[in-house]
């Protein structure tokens, strides 16, 4: 008799904890061969709302962390992911990819986290400005995180789409609620375990599995969500998303990208979830205009 394998229970990730969905529901996606991927949490509206509350609670602490520290934590995520590479590759293959593609996907995901880790304490230098106003004022513009961001991850990948959207959001000091790929949810849950062991404070990233059609509307219309980043090209979904976000004027970024392309990463994705704040202060003019001291 061989040893009986211990199967994993896939749960969601809210506020740094791994509850099952409050609805008690599940769904069972299958791979191309018809094999069941597992009993996956079918999250509800209430899970969305709980996640937003957790994300808002975490926002103050995360946004005020030193940029350098945020960078170290993103780097730590990459380290943890590297250590669990084999598990992710196995999951991606099980969900239908070739071994080569799976290996590539995990490698790019790790490298992308390192890429954004490095941006944490640099993007403000590139994006900010001191503005030469005509009056006697010191005037400067800096970037600040928007707040709580809804992340609707790429449907066609299990890991790389999620990482590609989440990393610039949190690198910029935002917290987020992620809706994972409906059909390929395994890596999102395992990635939550990576986050949980990477010094990422609870609530900074919350990950929900289930039906996008069920979770996106309450997320898009939630009054305490500041922005949404969406990956995909479903016209109907984008229209619905943009319509419901008008309620509180959320900022929407829609990306139609091949995240497996190693170039699909840049500072502008960080900027998409930033507000520009401009500050003025008078300058006291002491001394003659032509004095050369």
């Amino acid at each position, binding site marked *: 008799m061989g040893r009986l394998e211990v199967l994993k229970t896939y749960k969601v990730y809210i506020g740094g904890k791994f509850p099952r969905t409050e609805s008690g529901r599940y769904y069972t996606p299958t791979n191309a061969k018809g094999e069941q991927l597992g009993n996956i949490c079918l999250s509800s509206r209430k899970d969305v709302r709980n996640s937003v509350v957790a994300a808002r609670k975490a926002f103050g602490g995360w946004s005020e962390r030193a940029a350098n520290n945020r960078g170290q934590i993103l780097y730590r995520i990459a380290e943890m992911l590297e250590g669990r590479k084999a598990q992710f590759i196995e999951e991606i293959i099980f969900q239908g990819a070739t071994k080569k593609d799976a290996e590539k996907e995990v490698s790019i995901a790790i490298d992308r986290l390192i890429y954004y880790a490095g941006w944490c304490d640099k993007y403000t230098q590139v994006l900010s400005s001191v503005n030469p106003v005509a009056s006697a004022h010191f005037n400067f513009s800096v970037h600040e995180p928007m707040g709580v961001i809804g992340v609707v991850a790429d449907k066609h990948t299990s890991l790389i789409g999620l990482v590609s959207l989440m990393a610039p959001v949190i690198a910029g000091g935002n917290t987020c609620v992620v809706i994972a790929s409906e059909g390929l949810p395994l890596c999102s849950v395992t990635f939550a375990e990576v986050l949980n062991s990477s010094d990422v404070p609870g609530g900074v990233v919350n990950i929900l599995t289930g039906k996008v059609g069920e979770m996106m509307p309450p997320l898009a219309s939630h009054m305490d969500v500041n922005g949404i980043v969406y990956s995909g090209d479903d*016209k109907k979904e984008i229209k*619905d998303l*943009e319509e419901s976000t008008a*309620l509180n*004027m959320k900022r929407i970024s829609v990306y139609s990208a091949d995240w497996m392309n190693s170039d699909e990463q840049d500072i502008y994705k960080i900027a998409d979830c930033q507000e*520009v704040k*401009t500050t003025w202060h008078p300058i006291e003019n002491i001394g003659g205009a032509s004095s050369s001291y």
Partner: protein
Amino acid sequence: MAKKKNTQAAVEWDYSPSPESTSHIELKSKYDLYIDGKFVKPSSGKYFASYNPATEEKLADVAYANEKDVDKAVKAARKAYTNVWSKMEASERAKYIFRIARIMQERSRELAVVETLDAGKTIRESRDVDVPLACNHFFYYAGWADKLDYAFPNRKVEPLGVAGQIIPWNFPLLMAAWKIAPALAAGNTVVIKPAETTPLTALILAEIIHEAGLPPGVVNIITGYGDTGAAIVNHDDVDKIAFTGSTAVGKIIQKAIAGTGKKATLELGGKSANIIMDDAPIDQAVEGIINGIFFNQGHVCCAGSRLFVQEAVVDIVVKKLKRRMDTLILGDPLDKNTDIGAINSKEQLAVINKYIKIGIDEGAEMYQGKCVIPEKGYYCPPTIFTDVAQSSTIVQEEIFGPVLTIQTFRTVDEVIQKANNTPYGLAAGVWTDKGSRIFNLTTKLRAGVIWANTYNKFDPTSPFGGYKESGFGREGGLHGLSAYVKLK
């Protein structure tokens, strides 16, 4: 009632009238639409009147554009974009925009007087703020046209195409400049609609653009009401919508363009906090309060309409504020002594009076500056309310008039929470002598523009725009360019 004695001072402030001459202004009796480089009649044949809100006299008739006219303008803009403007050397594009700035400067006196006639704002403001800023805005963005690669490192910059722009009545010419200048610099063409109560300076701008020899169709200026604006928003061949106005209309626009792929920048309402700490230089702060709420009759989206005063200094601040209010001169906007001009329209005066009534009905205590209201025209005296709460209607809703609410606070933490407790996030003011406190407050206030020890300052190089329901996107500065480009 002893307080009344202070107001005696108001009587002594008698200035001789000093009206700006209008002799050099020749308004036409009728203005047509500026489409494809020509002044054309509206297809409906309809015109509407623009009035001087200070005298209620008619200034001119202005064409009322309908869907057909909008379509014509968009087609002209598309043609100009495809055939001319997007193909032109960027440095040549720059020179056209520089030229507009220069001709505006040459005609600045005319622009200032017409702005005051049409909008009711004081000539001092039109002359010293609106018009020079508008000219400088064109001058500033002109220079960006051939330097866009420096603004967006590591990317190829492309224009969006045709920009549909809808602007408000509070800074008519300045808003036209804010919209048109960056759009052109980035290589877009424009269809712009000024507000129905203040179309005249935009139409003079059309003459200036014509005089500058801009290729036909690059800028199209059409006048009309909300339905004209809606036709621009809903036109299939418009790539970008830029709107400044109310949050309510902003939300309608965001909904209307959902799923169309049109890019948008929305500059919307505000209810900005102006915060006076107990160590603030009180006299300067009082000037800042006055400027914050009474500048342009309070028709300012970033007006400092919610005043927060730290408890220790509230008595002295309110006393000095009332005294200062009594010295404000309200009346003929063309008079160079006038501090407070006319309310922009009869409709807006009704809105303001409605809110004043709500304030009284909800139990707040009102004080109004002692000034004589002219018999003709639309005027509202400077007004403040004390004894208000966070829940008061006049504290929560944008009034867009010379009405200030005054609240108190004890700690910095308290005022941050109160100031941020609003769906808006356009601007804020902070008055304190302590540097660390300024940085603490300016960092924690959720607003796009923060004035520390100053208020209501604007500059072409300085990005302007809000957080939350005050809209999105920035206008001005390098950051204002991103609203009009796509990055490859």
